[in-house]
């Protein structure tokens, strides 16, 4: 009897170990996760590497300029115009630039035009509906206006021959002093992508 119990325990342990060795926390094996930071060279349309490279280059240059200011400037990001012939989500580029600048601690951001409706809705809801405790409800008239406005554009030149397609992108960004109307910072990033057709 004792022998049977021992053998059973041993088999159980072996079974458990083999189960541990073969199991991974996945379901299915048809999909492979890739490196989101790798250089993407599938086609020469605007891609993830272009977005990441442009955003990083702009944020670093802007951050260095802002670091020279006496206090962290309050800025707002306006629209980046897409002047290329292809669809580019320019909001994704400005969002990445803004995230990097906030993370670096070099700038503060005021609510931009795109988010203003949500901001005023929440402000109005808290201050005028009477649903909230007076001590915790936010007050109207305390929003801070941005000192600087960041805006830009992306343009491209596309050339094709029978066997080659060449795309040149230029991303330009400027920062304007809202009160003075002067351009305080400007930066450009160029990218050339050539592919065989």
């Amino acid at each position, binding site marked *: 009897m004792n022998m049977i119990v021992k053998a059973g325990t041993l088999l159980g342990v072996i079974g458990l170990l083999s189960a541990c060795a073969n199991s991974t926390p996945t379901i299915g094996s048809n999909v492979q996760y890739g*490196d989101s*930071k*790798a*250089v993407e060279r599938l086609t020469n349309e605007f891609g993830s*590497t272009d977005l990441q490279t442009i955003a990083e280059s702009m944020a*670093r240059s802007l*951050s260095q300029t802002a*670091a020279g200011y006496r206090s962290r400037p309050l800025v707002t990001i306006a629209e980046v115009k897409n002047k290329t012939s292809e669809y580019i989500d320019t909001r994704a580029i400005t969002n990445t630039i803004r995230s990097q600048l906030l*993370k670096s*601690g070099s700038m503060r951001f005021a609510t931009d035009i795109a988010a203003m409706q949500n901001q005023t809705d929440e402000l109005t809801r808290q201050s005028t509906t009477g649903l909230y405790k007076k001590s915790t409800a936010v007050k109207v008239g305390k929003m801070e206006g941005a000192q600087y406005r960041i805006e830009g554009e992306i343009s491209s030149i596309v050339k094709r021959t029978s066997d080659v397609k060449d795309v040149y992108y230029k991303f330009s960004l400027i920062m304007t002093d809202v009160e003075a109307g002067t351009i305080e910072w400007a930066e450009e990033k160029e990218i050339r992508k050539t592919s065989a057709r």
Partner: protein
Amino acid sequence: MLIRFCTLVAILFLGCSHLAMSQTIASKVEYVGTSQYLSITGLKTREVNGLLNLIVEIANSDTSDQEGYYRMEWFDADGFPAWGEEAWKPILLHGSQRQKLQVIAPTIKALDFKIVFSGDRNWANNPSPGQNQ
């Protein structure tokens, strides 16, 4: 006699500074694979508005165009990462070209760095970060 002595001192000084420079570069560069033609041959640092600035010189020993990839790793005063994972960036060097890259640290907390570099053509089938080539 004096000229000879001065020349010797100058050569020793140049040799030492070259060796020190090579050691500095080696300690700051991490090659992914063994790049066949591209290598980092120069490195200068300075601080601008509290942010670390680098000039990285990359050389192509081949007479044809060569592509490489790089990204930076940033560390704080305690050696911990001061920034998230950067994207790999492509760089093209023409035949026999030396190119200087200017790199700016993302935050004033970044006090130290490492350059992670990969050539598109590596010895012994080492993978490069370029997808779907």
